[in-house]
């Protein structure tokens, strides 16, 4: 997608524009907040870039700001930065507080020790006041006025990284801050060290890197919950020695396990296991009636007990017997005499694993179910067979369609809709991203499209412009959609269309016996405010064919790293149309679709990376 966008709409690099507030269309929401707080006379320079970092290998959205000394020295700037970051990334209040404190300290150091070249220390009130007066003086002097502090924010999967750079000659922060004692000055770094997950200086001290882990609070709560469930687990102890039962029972009780049951041989243990469904079994080997080996083998054959943790306690030293007990199905073993700490640790670990696995399985089950429901809903965005056949008869066209998603739900959809008795709209959209994000956005777009179509749908260019401005307000800057939107006029036998970064549509002209490639260019919808879209019109007569497809058709590589080209598609379309003379052309659109899909599947055998939609329209 990105490749295609760059090809069609080369994006101008955003450069730092000092003394001027950037109004680049790529500036994201967060900056709006910052701008609203800005006094332009403070000479704030702000730039927010959506792109990829060159310094950090993994792709991450990144935000860049350059603030003049005077503005950055403002005590609330760190709070404002973190508030705007928090609009995009979920951060707990506590983490926001920590980050804003660190940013405050980091920026202050960057200005005072970096840009203003002030390296003095102070012990007394008088010295401190002199120091601060000097700061104020230098902030106002023209010599230091042009320097600024830049702040980069990188959002990584599990951490947030801030890079604070100044334009000074560097400063030895480490020797300033390693006394370990808090004094009248130089407390900033120790404070940051306590609050951030990690921090270090580079470029002789003119670049500070602050890292914060993004712990998922829910996850932590979940683990807390697991711990509680561990101690309320049911434990079955199978041992024929009453003394051992007492010993282990007492040990477990001392570690907050209260749900204990005892059995004195394998047979009794088997019955109680099935009856009680314990979370873990502590098993002795040598017992009358039925020994531990037998118990293990039998219980593993009972449905639902194949994963029950069985912790065997054994006095046997021989490796053969140890191997044998594992072969029979034990999960783990401890040797007698039991080491209390080891025993409790093993019980805990097996219970935690078991509970976490149960949780995961349930979670997965729920997600699969929800995604299934979501997919059914998404299928309903596409035309149903009955509405389609009704429209096909009325407007004298047929459409063959193929739709598959790369994950459970996708970001593509297509459709046809009545505008009036002679005019019908056809469209195909591909939202950036697939999976849940893409899918959620398709619902928004679908609603919006249908809301606006009755009023604006008869003018494709105008329709896309309105759709774009509405979408621009709704969605995140990093999200956008490509679209082909056309109207088929059955009176004039024309197709009028407008496009937003969609793959080249291909049109077969039956009268000329050849194909033409339509222009699919245009800014993607939702990416650039007030984009213009042109309505183009072409003849679309009886027996003409129109091929529309999402970009994964031409952006899926084969083993040799080659892509399907537009020319390949033209060739398929021309060859198929020519080889099916008119009297045999009953389902030519299906034949074309089959040929395209056949070519795609022989070309690329790898699983789909993105959603794939292909439509072939024919007029009759």
């Amino acid at each position: 997608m990105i490749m295609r966008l760059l090809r069609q709409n080369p994006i101008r690099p955003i450069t730092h524009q000092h003394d001027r507030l950037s109004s680049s269309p790529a500036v994201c929401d967060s900056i709006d907040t910052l701008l609203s707080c800005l006094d332009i006379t403070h000479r704030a320079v702000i730039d927010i870039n959506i792109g990829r970092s060159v310094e950090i290998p993994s792709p991450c959205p990144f935000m860049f700001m350059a603030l003049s000394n005077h503005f950055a020295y403002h005590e609330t700037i760190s709070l404002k930065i973190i508030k705007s970051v928090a609009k995009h990334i979920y951060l707990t209040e506590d983490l926001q507080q920590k980050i804003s404190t660190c940013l405050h300290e980091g920026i202050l150091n960057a200005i005072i020790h970096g840009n203003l070249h002030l390296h003095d220390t102070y012990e007394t009130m008088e010295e401190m006041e002199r120091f601060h007066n000097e700061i104020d003086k230098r902030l106002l002097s023209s010599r230091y006025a042009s320097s600024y502090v830049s702040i980069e924010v990188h959002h990584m999967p599990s951490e947030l990284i801030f890079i604070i750079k100044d334009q000074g000659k560097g400063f030895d922060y480490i020797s300033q801050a390693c006394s370990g004692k808090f004094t009248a000055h130089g407390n900033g770094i120790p404070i940051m060290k306590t609050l951030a997950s990690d921090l270090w200086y580079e470029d002789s001290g003119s670049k500070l890197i602050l890292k914060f882990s993004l712990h998922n609070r829910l996850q932590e709560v979940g683990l807390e919950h697991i711990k509680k469930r561990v101690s309320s687990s049911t434990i079955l102890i199978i041992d024929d020695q009453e003394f051992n039962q007492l010993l282990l029972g007492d040990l477990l009780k001392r570690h907050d396990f209260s749900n204990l049951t005892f059995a004195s041989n394998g047979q009794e243990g088997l019955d109680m296991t099935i009856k009680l469904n314990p979370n873990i079994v502590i098993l002795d080997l040598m017992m009358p009636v039925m020994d531990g080996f037998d118990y293990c083998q039998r219980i593993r054959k009972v449905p639902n007990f194949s994963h029950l943790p069985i912790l065997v306690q054994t006095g046997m030293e021989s490796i053969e017997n140890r191997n044998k007990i594992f072969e029979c199905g034990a999960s783990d073993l401890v040797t007698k005499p039991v080491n209390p700490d080891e025993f409790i640790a093993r019980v805990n670990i097996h219970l935690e694993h078991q509970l976490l696995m149960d949780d995961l399985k349930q979670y997965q089950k729920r997600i699969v179910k929800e995604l299934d429901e979501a997919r059914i809903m998404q299928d309903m965005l596409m035309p149903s067979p009955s509405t389609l056949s009704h429209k096909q008869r009325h407007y004298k066209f047929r459409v063959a369609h193929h739709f598959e998603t790369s994950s459970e739900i996708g970001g593509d959809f297509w459709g046809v809709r009545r505008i009036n008795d002679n005019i019908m709209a056809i469209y195909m959209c591909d939202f950036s991203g697939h999976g849940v994000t893409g899918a959620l956005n398709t619902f928004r777009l679908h609603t919006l499209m249908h809301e606006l179509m009755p009023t604006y749908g008869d003018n494709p260019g105008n329709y896309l412009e309105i759709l774009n401005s509405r979408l621009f307000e709704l969605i995140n800057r990093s999200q956008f959609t490509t679209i082909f939107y056309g109207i088929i006029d059955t009176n004039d036998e024309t197709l009028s269309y407008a496009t937003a970064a969609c793959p080249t549509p291909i049109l077969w002209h039956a009268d000329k016996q050849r194909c033409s490639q339509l222009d699919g260019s245009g800014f993607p919808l939702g990416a650039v405010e007030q984009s213009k879209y042109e309505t183009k019109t072409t003849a679309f007569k009886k027996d003409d064919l129109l091929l529309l497809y999402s970009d994964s058709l031409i952006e899926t590589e084969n083993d040799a790293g080659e892509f399907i080209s537009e020319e390949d598609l033209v060739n398929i379309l021309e060859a198929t149309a020519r080889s099916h003379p008119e009297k045999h052309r009953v389902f030519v659109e299906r034949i074309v679709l089959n040929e395209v899909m056949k070519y795609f599947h022989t070309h690329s055998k790898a699983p789909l990376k993105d959603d794939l939609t292909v439509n072939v329209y024919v007029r009759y």
Partner: protein
Amino acid sequence: MEYSVHKNLDRTITVKLSGQFTSKDSVHFRTILTLLHNDKLETFTLDFEALEFIDSSALGMLLMLRDEAEKKRVYLELSHTHGHIRKMFEVTKFNQLFNLLHP
């Protein structure tokens, strides 16, 4: 930062701070420090209830206040160290250096 001074018979002084207490408040703080120059003064309270933010330089100033109070044999206490401010005190272990009231 803003502050207000409440005196009680010259023996106790309470200074209520509000807003943000940062490196820029050194002048203000100097004035607050001069309040210690009073022979009858026994207890000096800094009230943080309305304070929203405190930074490392401000903590440095508090250390100076503490030294000055010790010299003048004035009992210094800090009250209502809440939320973020409380955290800063914990992080820096300043809670062990000061007498905290209504923490």
